[in-house]
């Protein structure tokens, strides 16, 4: 995306913090996350389970149970502040302007209604559609997401569809109101590779056909590399690195990103005797180390890592790591060859 600061991005998230009450004080599942999503842009959010990637986007949509979670910071959609918006106003936004696709398509569909009826319901909830017009539009959408014989699929129940077909139906539903922003949370994790390739191709095509911006949440670096324009890497509730997909996949700066990329077994070329791996496990939210949360697992950590880290401002390639550009080359080798303490 061209960087023109005068244009307001579609979605602007600033210093987002999501806390849950824990037995020993609040736990920050998301801590000071800032990012922008431009119109028509695909933002990939990667991280391991528990890194806060889903919670970040759920809080953007106001989908966290508000009695349990405290959301602070600012989320502006088309310049309008979403945090603190009354539930009814948010409800009007969700589904119409911001749509969401979840990992498991079966939980997003009601088993007791036909697929078509669920899309019609979505259309009629957000706009004035006659029954026949809504039906025609729903069939059109089912065709647009590549379901064979869409008129027949309209009449079927979710259990009659395969996993890949269900996910297509859910995407059709998400697109029914031409949302400006589509949030896809691990949309292909439950699917087989050959079906995953089809769904990723579909999301790619929809971006050009419908012009929607997409936030793609995934733990799979491969999925993100094939679709995203820009990427956020999250660890323990914070953004540790951000940049364009090319910057991140060709020349990452953060030891965690190196580890994530290095620990994927290659599909071609020589097989390494041992895979580079990140030692240890992600920290628990109630026992976060001071300073950099990744330091205990990092082979390049030193005394500087104990100091609190600055939050990353949104925008260009940046990393929350103290390594200077001159130190990165040697540190990268150390991280990928000698693993940190197990």
């Amino acid at each position: 995306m061209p960087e023109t600061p005068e244009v307001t991005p579609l979605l602007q998230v600033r210093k987002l913090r999501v806390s849950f009450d824990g037995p020993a004080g609040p736990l920050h599942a998301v801590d000071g996350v800032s990012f922008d999503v431009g119109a028509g842009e695909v933002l990939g959010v990667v991280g391991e389970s528990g890194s806060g990637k889903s919670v970040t986007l759920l809080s953007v949509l106001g989908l966290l149970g508000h009695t349990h979670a405290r959301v602070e910071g600012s989320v502006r959609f088309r310049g309008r502040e979403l945090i603190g918006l009354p539930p009814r106003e948010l409800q009007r936004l969700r589904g119409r302007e911001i749509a969401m696709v979840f990992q498991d398509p079966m939980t997003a569909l009601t088993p007791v209604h036909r697929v078509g009826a669920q899309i019609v319901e979505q259309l009629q909830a957000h706009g004035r559609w006659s029954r026949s017009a809504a039906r025609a539009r729903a069939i059109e959408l089912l065709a647009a997401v590549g379901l064979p014989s869409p008129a027949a699929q309209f009449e079927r129940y979710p259990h009659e569809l395969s996993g890949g077909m269900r996910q297509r139906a859910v995407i059709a539903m998400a697109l029914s109101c031409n949302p400006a922003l589509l949030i896809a949370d691990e949309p292909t994790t439950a699917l087989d590779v050959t079906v995953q390739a089809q769904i990723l191709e579909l999301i790619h095509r929809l971006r050009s056909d419908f012009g929607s911006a997409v936030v793609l949440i995934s733990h799979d670096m491969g999925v993100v590399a094939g679709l995203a324009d820009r990427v956020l890497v999250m660890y323990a509730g914070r953004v540790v690195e951000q940049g364009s997909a090319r910057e991140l996949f060709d020349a990452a700066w953060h030891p965690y990103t190196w580890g994530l990329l290095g620990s994927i077994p290659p599909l071609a070329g020589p097989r390494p005797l041992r895979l580079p791996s990140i030692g240890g496990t992600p920290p628990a939210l109630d026992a976060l180390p001071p300073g950099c949360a990744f330091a205990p697992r990092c082979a390049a950590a030193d005394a500087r890592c104990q100091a609190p880290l600055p939050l990353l401002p949104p925008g260009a390639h940046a990393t929350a790591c103290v390594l200077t550009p001159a130190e990165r080359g040697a540190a990268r080798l150390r991280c990928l060859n000698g693993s940190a303490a197990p």
Partner: protein
Amino acid sequence: MSAQGTAPLLDVRGLSKRYTVGSVFAPGGRRVVQAVDDVSLCLWPGETLGLVGESGCGKSTLARCLVRLLDVSAGTLHFEGRDITHLGARAMRPLRPRLQMVFQDPYASLNPRRRVADLIAEPLRVHTSMGAAQRLARVEELGALVGLRPEQLQRWPHEFSGGQRQRIGIARALALNPRLIVADEPVSALDVSVQAQVINLFADLRERLGLTYLFIAHDLSVVRQVSTRTAVMYLGSIVETGPTDALYAAPAHPYTAALIAAVPRPQVPPVGAPRAAPVLQGDPPSPLDPPAGCRFHPRCPAATALCRITRPPLQDNGGGRAVACHHPLPPPA
């Protein structure tokens, strides 16, 4: 590597597993699912055979048949030269220590009410006459082998992360010095960074203990990293096998080629490079109603009239490879 001169550790011939689903009163009546269909394979001492395929292709059913957790419908099964196809539970018991399994879900396969040391000691209690002190020493030894500290052994399973639980599961499987370990998707529930640790652990243990693995996974890159030989399964049958490096470098079956092509690569394609369209359309067919002829023909880009009628057998393709295809892909020039 496979030492062809010695006897295979596990020799599987024409193994099939059928299930009956539905009932005479249900709509559709009773039907038969051929979950595993005429599978033959050999496991040689010291090798790791990787088994890949999409969900529902019968990988797990096959694994469970091989360790006799399921009864076999047809075919024979020889372990260490002995026919174990129809051995009863009692007759199997003396063989169990040498034939162990590691399961996928490290959350479901450990009893939450038992301490880790007890969990690892359980096979020792069942199968050996070791005293308590001896058992504890062996448990600590096993813990060290898989990277668990002695003080961690007194904790409960819920105190461990997924990767550490999988280490506990592996320690349990190793307790009785097995020769063969059947690992069913042992790393697919783990995060990437932890997955690499467990893959390395499998490799280390193979070196140190001279183990033989049947390693089942749906992730093609994981199987490539782990196995010396790979078998690809589709709808209950093996469609291609061969040495891992050769098979990945030049797949002969169109399905293998499509599977490898479908794996998303963690690289950004060069500027202006055309986006490769997915090779395969549609989903794998239901094993309840498999297509006639070659079971892959409805999705195959190279299917001909022959493929729709005649089912290709798994045939030798040279170089230790076999492929079940009428029109195997040529090796690269």
